[in-house]
């Protein structure tokens, strides 16, 4: 490149811009090439699975992974996956656990944040430290002991076990609420107090409505985390399907029936995709807020 540019430089100062332009064109090409490569690496594993899910069993057996399905509207595998794979049960159970845990997390979390941000009381520092240390304990390691607790409470194999665990282990949510609450002016509380409101009324009528953006963030992030939760459901709810465990079970009965497994996998991914497309901005924001803590 430099060889070609050198002679021109002697003639006019504009020769430098050609070199620069060449370099920037190749940089731009490299940039877009790398982006396209990344997109292919991300989408390819998902697309081949989609292809597989739309093929009939004999068609799947005869074709390679990149051969397009003959009939793009062949949804038989999806029906099989949904009915034989008991995915409906998985969706219903996940939905119930999701809804109850989210409501619980939001109420317990906002109430705790309200107390920690708006009151001065003995023991406050201790509570803060307890919450802080708890973020350091990786949940999956303490399952050995948590299991004994759940079992001792008689909650083994119930949805209540999952709900309690999801509500009890969400410390990040409390942090987000505290952070957000600190930005709500205290004078609002005081104004309400002058109006004769008690603490509960202030929490319910003033603070909770103002926390809406933080609540939305927590609901989205936590909702995705619960939808994707695998091990807790696997361990504590063996006899009912959660969406992850319903899919995991496909490994057994459908063994080598990859076209059905692929359909089940796509079924699980679609709600995530829809949520992502609808809520993109909030998901990014919530994750950066939650992860850096």
């Amino acid at each position: 490149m430099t060889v070609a540019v050198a002679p021109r430089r002697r003639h006019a100062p504009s020769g430098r811009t050609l070199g620069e332009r060449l370099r920037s064109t190749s940089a731009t090409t490299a940039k877009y090439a790398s982006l396209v490569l990344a997109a292919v690496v991300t989408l390819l594993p998902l697309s081949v699975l989609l292809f597989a899910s739309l093929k009939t069993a004999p068609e799947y057996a005869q074709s390679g992974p990149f051969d397009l399905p003959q009939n793009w509207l062949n949804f038989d595998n999806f029906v099989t996956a949904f009915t034989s794979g008991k995915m409906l049960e998985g969706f219903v159970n996940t939905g119930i656990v999701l809804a109850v845990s989210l409501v619980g997390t939001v109420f317990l979390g906002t109430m705790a944040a309200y107390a920690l941000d708006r009151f001065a009381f003995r023991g406050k520092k201790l509570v803060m430290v307890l919450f802080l240390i708890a973020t350091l304990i990786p949940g999956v390691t303490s399952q050995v002991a948590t299991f004994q607790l759940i079992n001792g409470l008689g909650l083994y194999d119930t949805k209540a076990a999952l709900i309690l665990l999801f509500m009890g282990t969400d410390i990040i949510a409390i942090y987000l609420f505290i952070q957000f609450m600190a930005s709500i002016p205290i004078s609002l509380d005081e104004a309400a107090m002058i109006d004769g409101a008690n603490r509960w009324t202030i929490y319910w009528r003033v603070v909770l409505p103002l926390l809406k953006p933080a609540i939305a963030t927590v609901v989205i992030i936590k909702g995705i985390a619960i939808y994707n939760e695998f091990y807790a459901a696997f361990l504590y709810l063996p006899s009912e399907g959660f969406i992850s465990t319903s899919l995991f079970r496909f490994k057994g009965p459908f063994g080598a029936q990859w076209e059905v497994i692929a359909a089940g996998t796509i079924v699980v991914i679609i709600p995530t995709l829809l949520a992502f497309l609808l809520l993109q901005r909030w998901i990014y924001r919530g994750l950066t807020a939650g992860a850096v803590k």
Partner: protein
Amino acid sequence: MSLATPGAAPADAPAVLSAPARSRRLRGTRRAAAGGTAAPGGRPAGRRLAGRLTPWLFLSGAVGLLLLFTYWPALNLFWYSVTDWDGIDLTKEFVGLDNYAQVFTDPRIFNVFWVSLYYFAASFAQMAIALYFATILSFSTRLSSFFRGILFFPYLINGVAVGFVFLYLFQPGGTLDTVLAWFGLADPPQWLGNPDIVNWSLAGTSVWRYTGLNFVLFLGAIQSIPHELYEAAELDGASRWQQFWAIIFPGIRRIIGLSFILAIAGSLSVFEIPFIMTGGANGSATFVIQTLQTAFNFRQVGLASAMAVVLLIIVLLVTWIQRALFPDEKVDLT
């Protein structure tokens, strides 16, 4: 905090009251002044007690669950770890540090630490890829939100689904082998069946799954760098490469450092991908898989607890180092 408020309240109150459309009656400023819990002024003892209890009423749910589901199991973990409990027996025999001795001497257990190294190595690749794309996508790029979405999306996918996607990809004669055949590599290895390769395959899956998170964090950090800095650098004739080293890298050094240290803790506690894809077969068992299998399949709760305690202590140490190296403060860009 509310210690400071009673004094400030009367002064602020009129201004604030006029702002919101709340039309309730003002009940007298004396109450407002005494409203903060810390204000002691001549209230009956019952009210004072109620005032002192109020924060605990709000906290009880969250703190109760915290103690019950985080601290109680964690304490029990220490207790189980010095017993020979099998998880069912009513009596737990105290065995001292035997379980810990076994964790560090049994090669079957200790070997799983080597598996972490694959994931640790992979997390470097993951961060490099994320940093590269975060940098180029923070400058004007066509379709940038499209590419951002694509890079990030894998992070949101259900772990079991990711496992199946890659089981399909790594199958003998599957997607990966077909792609390699296009490039003339006709004799591919068994990606998940060969103990020498399985951990690379799984770590690669982990890179695919988690790069998006690093990417979004880096992108957020880069975008918080004031834009004038780039403009000034551009006026001075700095190339993109120079801008990266002089502005972007120092600007996000803290989050990069943080990610490195989280990568250590993360690679020690890898669980989902190997558990779902291979169940820990062919030497792909990680520390957490080994711990949980010891507890629930082999019913050696005592030994498993000791393993969990060891992991917990390592993670706490790593976090402590992280706090010491990267204290919680804003990066100074000036």
